[in-house]
């Protein structure tokens, strides 16, 4: 790649989208901390944060100032390098996952350019998300181990065992979904649901397994055993203070956002909404195809964020409603309930496809497989 190609890449629309995805991820995670308190206050019939700014809207800013100005503490006998590395890793892996999520369809520009509302389109998107999720536990493990504290170590060990156990069921739920969609690309999955029914119709059991595993993978109540205060002081982040602690908490909210986005995309139609074809057709006849396409795309993005916000709210709702599991109950649920259910789901899906046919596109093996489409087709 020479210099001119590089500069045109840097200032292209697509790079703006990448920046926007990064910024929006951070913004939503920031205000998730505020939303968490408001939801908690509402569910417990309290007032909640209302001091900083109107309705307490500046609370996340006040929190950040507090975290940044607190003393940075290194426990005696800790492994300093890994102690710092832990929260960094947690944050990095959390931020990586939102790169492949399609936040909308394409925008058509006047000069014929197509801008995807997705940072990068890879044809193994589902595997990418799964891989990044499976790396997320390292930040917890390394931080917990490096703290040189028994409670931290126990929290780290719990995190590792929990993550590995629930990844299994999560992967199996995704396999069943893959059998339905026939593609690993998140954008293609979203576009399929644009034209047909949402995947929740085909995979209700798979979705239930997936959402339970998502709670476990993001360490949210009722599965927040790695940071169980009643047993482990603070779990893996017992020894952390200042912004390093903040990074851990922040990473959790980013994970919640990403999990919500993945669930909306995989099972709840992504950026599609009822009546979009009607709207598209009526706008095309009155305003032209370009305008209609862009309006539908922007509306789709708004709808996708509404779905994501609902799931984030759902995470919080569950957190302030359900009590925490016991650790052996958590393990038993993962291995003896969700895992057999996931296998059953695969068998049922397979039987369904065998008897009723599949909506996945048939792979034409007589022809050479077409080269991967770099530029996504806007619309038929």
């Amino acid at each position, binding site marked *: 790649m020479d210099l001119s190609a590089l500069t045109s890449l840097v200032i292209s629309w697509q790079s703006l989208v990448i920046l926007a995805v990064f910024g929006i991820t951070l913004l939503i995670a920031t205000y998730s901390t505020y939303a968490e308190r408001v939801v908690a206050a509402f569910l417990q019939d309290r007032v909640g944060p209302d001091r900083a700014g109107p309705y307490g809207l500046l609370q996340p800013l006040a929190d950040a100032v507090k975290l940044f100005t607190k003393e940075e503490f290194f426990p005696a006998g800790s492994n300093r390098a890994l102690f710092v590395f832990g929260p960094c890793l947690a944050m990095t892996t959390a931020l990586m996952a939102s790169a492949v999520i399609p936040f909308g369809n394409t925008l058509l520009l006047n000069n014929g350019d197509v801008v995807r509302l997705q940072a990068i389109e890879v044809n193994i998107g589902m*595997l990418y998300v799964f891989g990044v999720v499976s790396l997320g536990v390292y930040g917890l493990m390394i931080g917990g181990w490096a703290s040189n504290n028994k409670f931290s170590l126990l929290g780290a060990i719990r995190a590792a065992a929990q993550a590995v156990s629930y990844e299994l069921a999560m992967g199996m739920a995704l396999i069943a979904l893959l059998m339905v969609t026939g593609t690993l690309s998140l954008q293609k999955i979203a576009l399929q649901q644009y034209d047909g029914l949402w995947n929740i119709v085909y995979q209700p059991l798979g979705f239930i397994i997936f959402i339970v595993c998502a709670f476990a993978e993001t360490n949210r109540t009722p599965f927040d055993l790695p940071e169980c205060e009643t047993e482990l002081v603070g779990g893996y982040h017992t020894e952390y203070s200042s912004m390093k602690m903040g990074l851990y908490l922040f990473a959790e909210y980013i994970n919640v956002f990403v999990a919500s986005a993945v669930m909306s995309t995989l099972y709840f139609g992504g950026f599609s909404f009822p009546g979009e074809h009607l709207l598209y057709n009526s706008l095309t006849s009155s305003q032209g195809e370009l305008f209609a396409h862009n309006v539908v795309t922007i509306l789709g993005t708004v709808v996708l964020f509404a779905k994501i916000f609902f799931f984030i709210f759902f995470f919080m709702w569950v957190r302030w409603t359900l009590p925490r599991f016991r650790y052996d109950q958590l393990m038993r649920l993962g291995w003896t309930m969700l895992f057999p259910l996931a296998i059953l789901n695969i068998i049922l899906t397979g039987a369904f496809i065998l008897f009723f046919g599949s909506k996945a596109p048939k792979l034409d093996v007589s022809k050479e497989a077409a080269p*991967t489409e770099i530029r996504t087709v806007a619309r038929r």
Partner: protein
Amino acid sequence: MGNSLFYFLAFVALLSALGVVFAKNPMHSVLFLILTFFAISGHYLMLNAQFLAAVNIIVYAGAIMVLFLFVVMFLNLNADTEPNKSGLAKVAGAIAGGMLLLVLIAALRNVNPVGADAASFDSQIGMVNRLGLVLYRQYLVPFELASVLFLVAMVGSVMLGKREAGERNF
């Protein structure tokens, strides 16, 4: 750019692989091994084998190394608590390592490094659908047998973890 990326990845892979062997602390060894897997996945990506790259990360870096780390944490292995190896173990280790080196050199000595022919090279060879076609047509039986093996292992672990009738832990 492709060349320099290759050299960078190769450098990281070799350096972190050496780090695995030479690190005194088992925890650092495990972390270096994870870095090695990432460098190797980078190589897969450069060969356009996206599926292999992702699966390498998911299976090795995401699952197996978590278990390695888990064991290291549980046993609290540290440089201080590590007992000194006896002389016999050192000699045995040196001989085994030397034999492996010998076999590798013998195997690679006569290899003629040929690059892929740019004209006839199929860039889609590593894509998921191509891999699926090969696995489900050419190698269907071995693939299914391997799948059954994995399924048996997973079901076996569930059965071992199941509570016996009348057993109580609390």
